């Protein structure tokens, strides 16, 4: 049973005058334990793809199964439960809550799960130790560097012990050295058995993945069998920015 099975998924954005197809019959299958990168030029539908995959947004057509569960028509409560228990998110901007210290930030998804305080503490301590921030529990996000904040975000994603980690440009706001560290951390997480789907426009980051897929005008190109290192994104056809702006 694949971790993620998407078949003919279509997602469109409508305004009064224009309809933009952000995902155009996307089909994808990811096995448990895989590390897959999704790349593509700006406006290609990467964020929409991540939103649909992470149950952050709905889709119009097609089927989508996550860990064997058809998530196509679930209600808010059920979707929230799946996001909380099966998915860990790592965002480009880290998305830490500025008013909460590191401990409370990692605690956020655990509280929504309703775990006991003892179990939450164990997971938080373990998660922060794993990313090397065990001694910074009571620091505020603003007191940490970008790389450290992203480590906290990874600890937050890991604390829920998810089956799938969705990473949205996880190194987008980091310098290259820190980006490399984060990618190594994600690789370690993947080696421990967690499936990772990472959206990135950075070929260097994408190279860490076992498999790379590309989005172009909302269409998915699986390059599993292609020679990934030689792919030059600048040679891909130009995308009409104005037509796809809504998907950004």
């Amino acid at each position, binding site marked *: 049973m694949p971790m993620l099975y998407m078949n003919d998924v279509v997602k469109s954005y409508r305004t009064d005058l224009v309809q933009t197809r952000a995902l155009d019959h996307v089909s994808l299958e990811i096995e448990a334990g895989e590390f897959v990168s999704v790349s593509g030029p700006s406006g290609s539908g990467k964020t929409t793809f991540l*939103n649909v995959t992470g*149950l*952050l947004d709905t889709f119009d057509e097609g089927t989508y199964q996550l860990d064997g569960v058809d998530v196509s028509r679930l209600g808010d409560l059920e979707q929230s439960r799946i996001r*909380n228990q099966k998915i860990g998110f790592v965002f480009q901007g880290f*998305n830490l809550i500025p008013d909460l210290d590191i401990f409370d930030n990692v605690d*956020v998804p655990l509280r*929504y799960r*309703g775990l006991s305080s003892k179990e939450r503490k164990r997971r938080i301590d373990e998660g922060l130790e794993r990313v090397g921030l065990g001694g910074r529990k009571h620091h505020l996000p603003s007191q940490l560097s970008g790389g450290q904040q992203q480590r906290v975000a990874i600890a937050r994603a890991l604390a*829920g012990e998810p089956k799938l980690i969705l990473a949205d440009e996880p190194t987008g706001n980091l310098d290259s050295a820190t980006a490399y560290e984060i990618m190594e951390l994600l690789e370690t997480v993947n080696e421990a058995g967690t499936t990772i789907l990472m959206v990135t426009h950075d070929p260097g980051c994408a190279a860490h993945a076992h498999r790379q897929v590309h989005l172009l005008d909302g269409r998915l190109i699986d390059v599993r069998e292609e020679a990934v290192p030689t792919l030059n994104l600048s040679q891909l056809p130009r995308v009409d920015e104005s037509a796809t702006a809504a998907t950004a």
Partner: protein
Amino acid sequence: MKHSIHIGPLLRSMMRNKTRVLLLTVEIAVTVAVALNCSAMILQQLEVLRRDTGIAENELIGVEVRPWAADYQDFQYRQRIAREDLAAIRAMPGVRNATIINTFPLQGGGSSSLAGPLGSPREEWIRTPVYSADPQVFDTLGLEIVEGRGFRETDIPTEPGPYIANVVVTRDFADALFPEGNAIGQSIDTGGGEEYPDVIVGIVGHMFTPYGGGPMETRITFFPRLPSSTQRSQYLVRAEPGAVDQVYASLTQTFVNVEPRRAVALRTMDEIKAGGYIQNNLMVDIYTVVVLLLLFVTALGIFGITAYSVTQRTKQIGTRRALGAPKQAILHYFLAESTLVSLIGLGLGLIGAYGLNVLLVNHAGAPKLDPVLVLVGSLSLWMLGLLATWAPAQRASRLSPALATRTV
């Protein structure tokens, strides 16, 4: 999936947003302190307005007669016309009784006098509102004689000038003058001295008339007389239950039939009472406006700050949703935040309310804060806080989790 309220992180988060929390708590605290004391004073005034006067207010009509004929200069003529008026009114269908009286009760103020047991030092005399009326005054007003007797026709003086009067007093006045309870038959001095004392012949159970506050409002004295002046006479007419309108419609004509050379003006007891309670009504109105204004401004403040907070935290809300918070958890988060702020504001406000109350009780005659009022007021303010938070909190709960990936 649980989405219980997470008080710990919420409190810690609030403590890191001190300015916002401080603004709201101070606003709520001031509102609690002022609104509770204003409400106590509103209730105090309403209590006065609703106080049992002992009078059959709903069945009474007041009549003011202003004659212009020269005959009215003559005391005997005025007495004769008064008797003819009373006889004609009492003969009207729907009329239970009528009296001629110097001042309408409940109109606020009137005539008052100092009185004390005969021979007592003047410094110990007590002030009493004074009514002069014919013997039917008690039945007309609906007052019950609980001891002794009412007036008789023979109690009414036949000539103007000082006289030894048989008087009827209220129970409160009798007890104030003679605490031993032996008021009947006692002589009192209302200014006539040893030569013209007044003798208490009867006691009325209860009567209240507004007179600017204080115990004198229930310490009342009735003198037997047919009071009339060359310029004015006043009558009170008691209709049978349900016949007030019918009597009101034909009263003027009855007076005109007896003596056409005079102007007749009718007033219901509600109209008379409005004058007596004008200050109370005004205070109720002012305090109510103050309380409503405070509540409105506070609700607006809570709404505005919460709405601003939602806008500021859009990305954070999206992140919480992405991390597994259902819509309801977001709603509960903001309601819990509002409740915590309200509780802190209420706590500070209650301290302020009691402090302010001590000042008002000592210097402005305000009542002490009733614990029930404090409880109801606090709950109402908490509910107001929740209501003011509801709309922005609902908006927050409807934000899409996809905001987490958006660059806001």
